[in-house]
């Protein structure tokens, strides 16, 4: 078929941030489906609770301290996360490298506390359905932190390599920060569900 040229796009940008890029939308789509998974796991917990005579089922209340520490650590990481995103937008490689190292540490810290959080549930996954639901919620969120920490570590390595000073890598850092916000936000309702809902009933 004969073609007729009606415009030239050679001068367009070759990189960008946020909703202009494909990766940002991909990240949002993955957050949506993972968020749906969390919502359904929470729904299953509430469903089981609504059918139970008492809640927790034949188990002591969970100790809320380790979970609270995780919540504090996660929320405390938010300001640095946003600073890191801004440094990436400003393409400030030095600050981005420092920010990524710190964010890696701030990702690993809640994982360490998480090791104490599972025993603090005071119930096994195989004790009863209440225990199963608790371990499922906490397991899902742990996987969530773990994958983002691995992603952050790989990205940190990439930013220290010769490929660091690349606009697409800076965009990756902003998308990774975007995802970490999601990790923080998903923990808050799950934290409430695991530690405070049983205390309300």
């Amino acid at each position, binding site marked *: 078929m004969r073609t007729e040229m009606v415009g030239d796009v050679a001068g367009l940008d070759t990189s960008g941030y946020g909703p202009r890029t*494909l990766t940002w939308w*991909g990240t949002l789509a993955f957050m949506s489906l993972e968020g749906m998974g969390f919502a*359904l796991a929470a729904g299953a917990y509430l469903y089981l609770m609504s059918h139970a005579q008492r809640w927790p089922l034949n188990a002591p209340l969970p100790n809320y301290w380790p979970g609270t520490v995780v919540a504090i650590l996660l929320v405390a990481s938010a300001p640095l996360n946003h600073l890191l995103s801004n440094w990436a937008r400003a393409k400030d490689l030095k600050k981005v490298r420092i920010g990524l190292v710190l964010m890696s540490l701030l990702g690993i810290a809640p994982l360490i506390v998480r090791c104490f959080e599972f025993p603090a549930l005071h119930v096994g996954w195989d004790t009863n359905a209440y225990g*199963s639901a608790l371990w499922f919620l906490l397991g899902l969120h742990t996987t969530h932190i773990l994958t983002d920490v691995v992603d952050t570590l790989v990205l940190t390595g990439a930013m220290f390599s010769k490929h660091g000073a690349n606009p697409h*890598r800076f965009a990756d850092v902003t998308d990774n920060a975007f995802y970490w916000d999601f990790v923080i936000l998903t923990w808050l309702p799950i934290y409430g569900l695991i530690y405070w809902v049983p205390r309300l009933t």
Partner: protein
Amino acid sequence: MTIQTEPPRDSSFDDAVLDQRLTEVWGTKPTLWGWLTTVDHKLIGRRYIVTAIFFLFLGGIAALVMRLQLGGPNAHIVGPDTYNQLFTMHGSTMMFLFAVPVMETIGVFLVPLMIGTRNVAFPRLNAFSYWVYLFGGLMLWTAFFLNSGPDAGWFSYVPLAGPQYGIGKRSDIWAQMITYTELSGLAVAVEIIVTVFKMRAPGMTLDRIPLFVWAALVTAFMIIFAMPAVMVSSTMLILDRLVGTHFFNWAEGGDVLLWQHLFWFFGHPEVYFIFIPATGLISSMIPAFTRREIFGYPALVLSLIATGFLSFGLWVHHMFVTGLPRLGESFFTASSMAVAIPSGIQIFCWIASMWDAKLRLRTPLLFVFGFIINFVIGGLTGVMVASVPIDTQVHDTYFIVAHLHYVLIGGAVFPLLGAIYYWFPKVYGRLLNERLGQLNFWLAMVGFNLTFFPMHLLGLMGMPRRIYTYQPEMGWGPMNLLATVGALIFFASFLLLLFNIVSSLRSRTPATDNPWEAGTLEWATGSPPPPYNFARIPVVSGREPLWDRPNSLPVVTGLRVDRRELLVSTLVDAKPDMLLGSPRPTIWPFAAAMVTSVTLLASIFTPWAVVWGALPIAIVFTGWFWPTGVKEEE
């Protein structure tokens, strides 16, 4: 000091040189390595469709064995245990390995071509999704041939599928097959959404998007919000079975109906993952045979979206006999009936599109007629069973078997067969034989109705589902024999399709670029399309761009030819916004799929596999994402 030189762009070359340059950059090498590493959406889409049709034949053979067994009373072709595995394999294969993947991945092939771009948004994820899907399907069928096929029905109800009654590894195989297929389905959904949002040709505003692309987009959104339900539930099932959790164990505070809620929260939208793309196929085919634009484009788009939303409010109608509160039953009856409204609007729009037109009665259009007739019958019985008193009477009888096959085969397989005849020349560069096509249609129409119409009557006579045989005194023999004869005819129609495909592929007459004189962009490029899809990116000013300006195609220039480059546009107005690189062929998606699949398979036998598998998984994904400094990353 390095001297920055301006990269070569498509505006600097004539058509012949441009074709050569772009083929070098976008081509896939015809070697085993090229085959394993390709990220071309057309090759992967085609591979997906062929694999799904292979599974269709396996699922079809399972159905045929069941029909032969039920053709007369007291038959002994298979025993009850094999029969249980057969109906489970049939349903699971048709839903998870054939219908959903084939409908989603027709989009993988067609969407980039219809919206005027060169690949999907995340080509490596696309390749990964295919391999995971293939390994999941092979695992299921290998298990079946080793007498470990799942046997608790395609919806795997607990407690039958749970640790107490589900023997051996059968239900674990089923639950893990879900993980593979849903992982792949979700990955494709993400790609489709981002591709449609950000990669449309300049000028393709929201009201100019081809209707099949709208359907693929709505389906992808539904998948994002529905598939996690079955992943969550199948994970809970496998945890109950393997590590002793109690999600579905009543004795320890679990609940068997939790399974049904989670499964059908996914399962009912799943029916629409199959049906909505099929309606998109219909809406995209009709204009080529009426020679005018589709009637009621806005109504059709809104109906697709409305069906998508409503499909999330219907799941409980699968659970009417479980003793739910009356208010719940009334709500779900109303919503189940309400979904007939957008479907009805679509059917009236299609009829209006064809009304008084000079129809070209070719094979795809025959399948469109077959679709409308069969789907309306299935829709009407659907409205019937939305009513709790009727559902209570016919639940778990052959009436439901008849209904669901009219909806699924009438509503999706007939459009698919029409689509195969319609798009085959675009995919393989050969037209299918028209006379064989018409014979194919009539065999399918007669065979399908002979198979499934009698099942309505068998259901009303009280024949329950999932029985492997029956006594002669029940009086179900003659009607079952008729259904079995119909099944053989229906199966023959698929063999005829296969023959038509093979003989057409051997034909030496190539198809033209636009054999149907259709108006959408996929017909503006070669048949089959070159690896880069479009030498220059088209510009769109209407819904049927090739009809707006029949003799020339407006294009933009300025894309680089020394790397894989895509034009990214704005979400609503589709204005050109950025030029981005697109990944080259790579082995990492295949490696990642292998490692993921082995880990998932091993986890059926020991939960520690998840721990051991974590390291290799981390290694391959790091390899995948590690920057390499190629031109596409500039």
